[in-house]
């Protein structure tokens, strides 16, 4: 039989399987000693939960707290301004991933920059920069890199090719971040209500499941590494519920189709060769030490942030005071509780981080509504 794309997801969207898991979860939930709050760390999971109406299938004692795992949403405004300023430089082509297109900075979004004449391009793969650079030898191509552990190796692969093939006109502006650090920051907060985590499978495909071992061990919070299809998420919720009723606290992997404890060692080695951990200021959460990924100093000549240092804005910009994205990310509030949700703050004119990309909690609530 020929393998088609649909073979990869059809079974994981099967209505009967989803209903069967819903039944198991509802029955098991009756035995829960207390209600549980699960944080899905990743925006991809938020999207799945809202798109497929997962919340409507859960009993009232299982709740979700939508986490900070959307690379666009967590980008502080001053860094978005970096992209805008870079796009305005003469002979620069600014290249980034599609999600960045409408994120507004202080002066507007990259979409606005482009309508005013800047050369801004959106790609699906960072390696597309190579083609753009070859076709425009008299221009400097700056790749504005975003994303968690999943996309970092692609940026490393781009730099690796740039160095090996001596491509003279590609620079990187890195905005990569990592998952475990914000999880730790959230549960260190005394007001934290999170009881368990749903870990993103694609992060663990790269970094392994080992990155979550500390959470059950040191913090008493179960973690299940989950795939992104509705059956994956339902199965993972069921696994978390069973841990609570069986009084276990463990790291489990639902997405055993591709996740190992160690992860992709080759990708990790490529990352380590060019990048190292740096401090990062998260929109909505503030400064989190060692939660970002930056270029090693020996590669400064490829670092757009260093080369254009003199013109890049440095001042930190906070969100509007009515915005409660910080509280939403900590699980203290849900999107509809925000006074500007759906009025002053909409996907077409986002005020706060969670409304920015379709993976943000507010945008997902706005787009998919909630009929429950």
């Amino acid at each position, binding site marked *: 039989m020929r393998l*088609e*794309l*649909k073979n990869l*997801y059809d079974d994981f969207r099967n*209505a009967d399987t*989803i*209903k069967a898991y*819903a039944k198991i979860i509802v029955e098991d939930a009756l035995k829960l000693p207390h209600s549980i709050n699960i944080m899905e760390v990743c925006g991809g999971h938020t999207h799945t939960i*809202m*798109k*497929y*109406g*997962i919340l*409507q*299938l859960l009993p009232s004692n299982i709740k979700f707290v939508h986490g900070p795992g959307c690379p666009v949403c967590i980008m502080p405004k001053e860094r978005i301004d970096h992209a805008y300023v870079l796009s305005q430089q003469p002979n620069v082509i600014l290249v980034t991933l599609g999600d960045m*297109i*409408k994120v507004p900075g202080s002066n507007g979004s990259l*979409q*606005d920059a*482009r*309508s*005013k004449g800047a050369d801004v391009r959106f790609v*699906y793969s960072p390696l597309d920069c190579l083609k753009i650079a070859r076709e425009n030898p008299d221009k400097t191509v700056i790749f504005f890199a975003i994303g968690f552990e999943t996309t970092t190796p692609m940026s490393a692969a781009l730099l690796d090719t740039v160095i090996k093939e001596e491509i003279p006109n590609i620079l990187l502006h890195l905005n990569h971040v990592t998952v475990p650090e914000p999880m730790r920051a959230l549960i260190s907060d005394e007001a934290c209500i999170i009881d368990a985590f749903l870990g993103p499978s694609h992060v663990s495909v790269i970094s392994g499941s080992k990155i979550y071992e500390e959470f059950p061990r040191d913090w008493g919070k179960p973690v299940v590494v989950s795939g992104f299809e*509705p059956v994956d998420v339902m199965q993972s919720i069921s696994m978390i519920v069973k841990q609570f009723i069986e009084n276990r606290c463990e790291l489990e992997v639902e997405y055993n189709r591709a996740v190992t404890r160690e992860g992709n060692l080759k990708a990790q080695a490529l990352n380590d060769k060019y990048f190292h951990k740096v401090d990062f200021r998260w929109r909505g959460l503030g400064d989190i030490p060692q939660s970002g990924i930056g270029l090693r100093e020996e590669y400064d000549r490829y670092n757009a942030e260093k080369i254009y240092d003199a013109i890049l804005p440095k001042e930190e910009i906070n969100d509007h005071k009515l915005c409660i994205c910080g509280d939403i990310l900590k699980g203290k509030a849900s999107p509809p509780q925000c006074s500007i949700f759906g009025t002053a703050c909409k*996907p*077409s004119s986002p005020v706060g981080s969670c409304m920015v990309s*379709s993976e943000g909690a507010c945008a997902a609530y706005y*787009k*998919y*509504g*909630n*009929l429950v």
Partner: protein
Amino acid sequence: MTKTITLAQGNGGEENNELIKKVFYKAFKNEILERSEDAAVIGNLAMTTDSFTVSPLFFSGADIGKLAVCGTCNDLAMMGAQPKYLTCSVIIEEGFEVETLERIVESMRGELAINGAVVVSGDTKVVPKGSVDKIFINTTGLGEIVQAGISSNNVSEEEVILINRDIGCHGATIFAAREGIEMSSALKSDCNSLYPQVKALIDAGVKITAMRDATRGGVAAVLNEWARQSNVCIEVDEEKLPISDEVKGICEMLGFEATALANEGTFVLAIHKDYAQKALEVLKSFDVCTMASIVGEVTQKYPQKVILKSPWGTSRFLETPNGELLPRIC
């Protein structure tokens, strides 16, 4: 609204509607325009205009010429009118190949014949290199109304919602062509003249309440426009939406919703329940419409909203697409 025009304002969705309302409706305000139908109805005539800027010019299933005739004729057909007379106005970039122009015009000729329409007036402008990308075409069409009273303001709880074929093919094809995604050869644009299907429905005695071709903004935009204009709730069964495996695949890879992808030969119908089965039979007799399907019903559950119901019993709102979907799709 933004101070400068962005590509999102040409998306056929939210931002596009806002631009039209705040700039054009404001200036040109009149009763006919404000009905906001696919084509203006003036007595027994329907009139519409459309410009075509698609890139690439030639793509799997059609080209800019075929599209320029289909697009305008389909807007007439959607008002129950037979396309009769078209104008053809072209803006050509200096250096464009005559042979390519001839291919485009030949393609227009073939499609005019299918509709039984003729080009009766035209205009040609050539601009210096770089002033326009290769060729843009505008066509204006005049049609004779065969079944009167079709309007997207009339959808009621008496109607069910039908779609004539599998959705999203045009948008997916153009996207795949631009991104250089090699897909199996089965994926091609649905670009097609709809008057033959409309005529067959009318000839079979089917009374059509509302009809709209789901171009930019896709099926999601049409359903939302109807829900708003007719003040009803439209409830759609997700599993009944006709979507080919190829389009599903593109959506999976690129994170699109098939309901938001553009079509050029796909239309949504609101038909009284009594005529629904008959309409489905008529449509299914066309080669391209084997996946025609009754996808939903009209209720008052959430007026002005469209609800998508999953096979596992959950539901969500289906919104009008927003943001920059894909510029120069038609």
